[in-house]
């Protein structure tokens, strides 16, 4: 038995199943982070004072650049597939993976600087929301890396048997990755700058 429209689009909706599925998933993610941003606003509006300058802005800015670059390489990884350039695809996907890893390493340095002074999430409401939101975002990065590792490793053989489906999967991974990137683009100014 096979399920229709796993690879090709259904004519009247113009969608393949996976495409709709990933968009719905992202919609739920928007609600998840939306709730956390709302929490941030409510806590901040209700606070008598709000700390500034506790975060490492240069490192945060570097991480922003890294994530934006990784979104570009992700698109290139997909586009290379569409142009049938397997070697380039591998390279770009690996680059995305490495950039994601560098992001997490930077995050690790930021976190450990806080913990070194004993200022964990329990220290203040600001650090509480900072650790919660960036922590959850970091888990999303990690999730993306696991998916990429899969497509770099065992998942890659699908390219031989069903290149269209493989390209679709990379596209969906990309959509997710752009979302994770976008969340950070909100997180950075909200937590570091404002």
């Amino acid at each position: 038995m096979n399920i229709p429209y796993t690879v090709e689009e259904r004519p009247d909706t113009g969608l393949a199943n996976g495409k709709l599925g990933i968009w719905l998933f992202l919609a739920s993610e928007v609600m998840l982070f939306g709730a956390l941003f709302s929490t941030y606003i409510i806590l901040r509006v209700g606070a008598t004072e709000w700390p500034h300058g506790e975060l490492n802005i240069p490192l945060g800015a570097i991480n922003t650049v890294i994530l934006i670059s990784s979104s570009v390489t992700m698109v290139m990884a997909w586009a290379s597939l569409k142009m049938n350039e397997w070697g380039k695809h591998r390279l770009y996907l690996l680059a995305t993976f490495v950039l994601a890893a560098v992001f997490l390493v930077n995050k690790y340095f930021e976190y450990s600087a806080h913990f070194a002074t004993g200022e964990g999430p329990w220290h203040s409401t600001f650090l509480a929301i900072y650790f919660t939101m960036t922590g959850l975002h970091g888990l999303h990065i990690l999730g993306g890396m696991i998916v990429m590792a899969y497509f770099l490793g065992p998942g890659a053989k699908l390219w031989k048997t069903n290149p269209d489906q493989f390209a679709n999967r990379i596209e969906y991974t990309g959509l997710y990755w752009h979302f994770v990137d976008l969340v950070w683009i909100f997180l950075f100014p909200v937590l570091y700058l404002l």
Partner: protein
Amino acid sequence: MDKSATHHPTVAHPHVEHAHEELGFWRTYVFSVDHKWIGIQYAVTGLLFLLFGFTLMMLMRWQLAYPGRPIPLIGGLFGQDKAPGGIMLPEFYNQLGAMHGTIMVFMGVVPLAVGGFGNFVLPLQIGAPDMAFPKINMMSYWAYFLGGVTMLASFFMPGGAAQSGWTSYPPLSVINQGQQTMWLIGMMFLITSSLLGSLNFITTTVQLRAKGLSWMRLPFFVWAQFVTSFLLLLAFPPLEAAGILQLMDKVAGTSFFMPSGLVVSNRIVTSMTGIAQGSVASGGGNPLLWQHLFWFLAHPEVYVLILPAMGIVSEIIANNTRKPLWGYRALVYSLVFLGFMSFIVWAHHMFMTGMGTTMSAFFQTTTMIISIPSVVILTALLMSLVGASIRFTTPMLFALAFLPMFGIGGLTGLPLGLAPSDIHLHDTYYVIGHFHYVVAPGTIFALFGGVYYWFPKATGRKMNDLLGQLHFWGSLVAINLVFFPMFIEGLAGMNRRMYDGGAQFAHTKSVLYWNVVQGYAAWALGLFQLFFIVNFFMSIKWGKAVDRNPWEATTLEWAAPSPPPHGNFLTEPIAYRAPYEYSVPGAAKDFTPQFEPERA
């Protein structure tokens, strides 16, 4: 454009296809990816949880009727930390209450209504071979299962299960000694499960509808599941966020929901439990924030509880009145409108929190608006009965009873939705009566009806009608004796969540005897469920064998064999007409199925 060319003849050669589909025991019965089996797994697990939740409630009813008297027979089993000498401790009562609500809502009704019926019926009704993502479907069941195991395990851990109600309001939920952390982790699993399920349902409905099955030809049940899935998809993530925040409060010493300078039992709360033991709580948190996030989920959640039930009832009513549903389009539009509105009424649960009159005015207005589509749906279903020659089958009895029971539940919601009257009624048994009328003789009756109705499709056999009738009439009388007195108690001012059932207050003395009546009625209700349990298992083996369309119904699921094979249909089903073409003038039979080609 030639539509037929774009559709796949998915199961054109069933015998060839199925010949090599020999799966082992594990992949057939445990880690199955077949939507029908997953549906049955969900339904059976859900029914078991309903039974378990019912048992917890029976213990509570004993304590309410006879406060402080040892629990007979089994009282000794609970141990010193729950019921020393068989006498229930207040902490244990709170555990029972919290877990009763959690289990009934998140592990009983929703998994049965959405996971069970949705999974089993929806793909069949739209003529699909399976769900769009069968593996994700399997994962969603197992996430639910793990959530259930986590919740159950919490009873046996130090401090016992969570104690702060299904609503888990902080600060109490954060500072009490029960396993709130396990509750939160369990909820994460359940939320994951319904996210996976809902995106699967939506994708399946959009993508896998059979040829000819346009949106306005969808059975109402499919519409109900479709809208429900959107509620699950978009309303659960904020609760997930709230759960993460509360978990941080529990284990990482944050104070998202903990105000500064909180005083409990004459002591200022300075430290949180968990890894940050000893560290000073930073304070500055906002307990109302939890309530907003929680009800942002939980109001849509109550529609998750009711919409699938409405879907089931509509199918049964159309089939047993042998008439098209009255006002199909009005039903669909009301349903969609209801879905939208359910996102902007949540703070009607918070009139008493001091959030301000502007907020109250807004939310009471939206609450009044949302009752309009509910009334439209109920009216359309009632109008469907007018002038029909009704077949009083067992499923139909349950569907018929749903209408007035849901009516009582909905109408009693109106005074709650208006801030001035809610001030009197909030946190009393009146609220308990209100939502139990909607969920128990409402939704759960509809679910029973659905079991009787689709049982032949799942097993190829009908359930016994006599046992079904006994189950129905007994349950109907008993359940009303349990829940109707709650309105009387509530109006007299009896509070909910009282360990002694209100005995400590003078103003409720005159209504306390109702607690005893409810105790007996709950026993009767439990006993009448035995008819169902016996009938269920007996009929699997000895029920009357039936063909593919025993109810002479019109929707697509009845085109598949009973039970349908993996892949469902022997030939690709095509929908030629609207879903409820009963008693078409000039037709030879009183039903013209969707899948029957136009005669040349």
